[in-house]
């Protein structure tokens, strides 16, 4: 009986730690989405599809062109960053003065475009990098290096964004513009340029997430649907545009998914997470850390 209890505990601990590792990547995605929302006041419904395109980018660079993973990764990040900027330039910029709902729906259209572009161009097969990283055994718990690496890289990415936002002029301008759109133009900041840069950074974060996720998951055109919705929920739960709230919410959700997955199927983990979200909307409708307006 005692032995059974020990085993159960080990699994629980393993699930908790895996949840934290998953939370890192989710926090990275939430950061990108929050950044774009905070600065441009737009929600990219298609954010997870940018990640999907990035995962395909990694797949082709590594599998077809035989590039080393660590050379392919920066290329992919650049590619998705460019895609983010392009998305802003083509779709969001003409709609900046339109009702917010229209902007959101337009990115919904982009979601369709990216998904079906991937279907048409790459087919619906599941593909993976073919890189199998070893598994780290710690006591009786097993953690894959892929997850550890993702977690570390996600944290590094977030620190890099933090430093950029606080230590550079452009970063300061981005933060300023998210506080007051009208005044910043008078202060000599080119809002259009800042928007474009922000979109590129948001894209780059999606690219980084793609490089990390492709280590753990197979890529297919609909892979975005498996973590896109959860990213939106994290952002809403943390309070849209609230970076710290998003960070905390990412780990809360990751734990729910990991623990729910431990006790039953992975889908139930997601169902619990969604249910938790709706309950939280009753209790804290404006997000975890929000002050009541």
């Amino acid at each position, binding site marked *: 009986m005692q032995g059974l209890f020990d085993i159960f505990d080990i699994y629980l601990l393993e699930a908790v730690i895996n949840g934290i590792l998953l939370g890192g990547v989710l926090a990275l995605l939430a950061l990108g989405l929050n950044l774009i929302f905070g600065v441009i006041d737009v929600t990219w419904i298609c954010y997870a599809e940018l990640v999907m395109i990035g995962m395909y980018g990694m797949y082709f660079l590594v599998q077809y062109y035989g590039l080393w993973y660590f050379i392919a990764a920066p290329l992919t990040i650049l590619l998705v960053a460019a895609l983010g900027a392009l998305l802003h330039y083509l779709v969001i910029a003409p709609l900046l003065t339109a009702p917010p*709902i*229209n902007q959101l729906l337009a990115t919904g*259209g982009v979601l*369709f475009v990216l998904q079906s572009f991937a279907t048409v161009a790459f087919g619906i097969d599941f593909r993976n990098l073919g890189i199998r990283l070893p598994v780290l055994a710690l006591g009786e718990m097993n953690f894959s290096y892929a997850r550890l690496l993702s977690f570390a890289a996600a944290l590094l990415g977030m620190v890099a964004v933090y430093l950029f936002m606080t230590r550079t002029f452009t970063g300061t301008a981005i933060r300023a513009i998210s506080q007051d759109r009208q005044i910043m133009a008078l202060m000599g900041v080119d809002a259009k340029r800042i928007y474009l840069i922000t979109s590129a950074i948001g894209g780059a974060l999606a690219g980084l997430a793609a490089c990390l996720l492709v280590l753990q998951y197979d890529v297919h055109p609909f892979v975005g649907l498996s973590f896109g919705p959860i990213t939106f929920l994290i952002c809403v739960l943390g309070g849209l545009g609230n970076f710290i709230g998003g960070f905390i919410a990412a780990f809360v959700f990751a734990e729910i998914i990991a623990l729910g997955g431990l006790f039953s199927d992975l889908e139930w983990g997601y169902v619990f997470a969604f249910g938790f979200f709706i309950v939280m909307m*009753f209790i804290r409708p404006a997000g975890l850390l929000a002050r009541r307006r």
Partner: protein
Amino acid sequence: MTSATLGWLVALAALIALPFVYREPYHLHILVLILIWSFAYTSWSMMGRFGLVSLGHGGFMGIGAYVTALLWNNFGLTPWLGIPIAMLAAGMLAIVVGYPCFRFRITGHYFVLVTLALSGIVLQVITATRDYTGGSLGYTPQRTSSGNHLLALQFDDKTTWYLVALCIWLVGLLIWHLVDRSMNRYALEAISEDEDAAAAAGVNVTAEKLKITLVSALMTALAGALYTQYQMFISPDTVSGIAVSLQMVFAAIVGGLYVSLGPTVGAVITILLAETLRIAFGTGAVGWDNLIYGILLVLFIIFLPQGILGSLVERLKMRRQPSLKA
């Protein structure tokens, strides 16, 4: 009787007479699909036209479809009872999610994302309970012996289905016009302009929003159930989830969500587009239809946010009353 009313009556008579004159099964099949989806898109636009953009309607449709089919297969409950139960379930869900949203003034982006979560949940629950629902492989209501079966709501011939779908579609338009004529419409329009001002003017914001959400959810569930009975096969991807929600938004916007026939025009365009592509490219068309949808959706929102029919109606009005021109 004005000439306009007469025109509508003639059009209606022509629509009713159509299947008795013209019996090509494939074309009738397309028409039935158009009518059912038009009804679904109309129910979405009920809310959408008042700025309540929901991506949760995939969830309501999924509930309508699966509850009806599950009750039929497991308990032998006739769809005549199963459909109301399914609608009730969807309506309850709409209230459970809608009430806190409206009570706590979750609007705009937040509302979209909360409802997005809703359709996500329904999709995941259907997939997770694969022991009962067949998961992503889909689900088939049990067929009764061949031929028409009124109690099981299963009909073999397209003519009957065409008339059923036409009837439901007309009911949808009727509900639209009832809402259009009611005081609630003015209240909801005021709310979509400015919630605070509307509340200050004595509009019960929460109740008004909840009412229209409930109507919309009930209609969407009915559309889902009807689709199940007609197609006799459902899968999580075709009746629930975010893709279906976005499809509704897309069709409503393309057609124009501020005019009663807008969603119908949207359904005609999207379904004809998908079918044309399917015939032209065969299985090679997988993905192309959505690619074109997506591009069109983006272009429409940028250049023609009122939709095709909406813009036409607007232009006609302008021509009749040039003084309206801003």
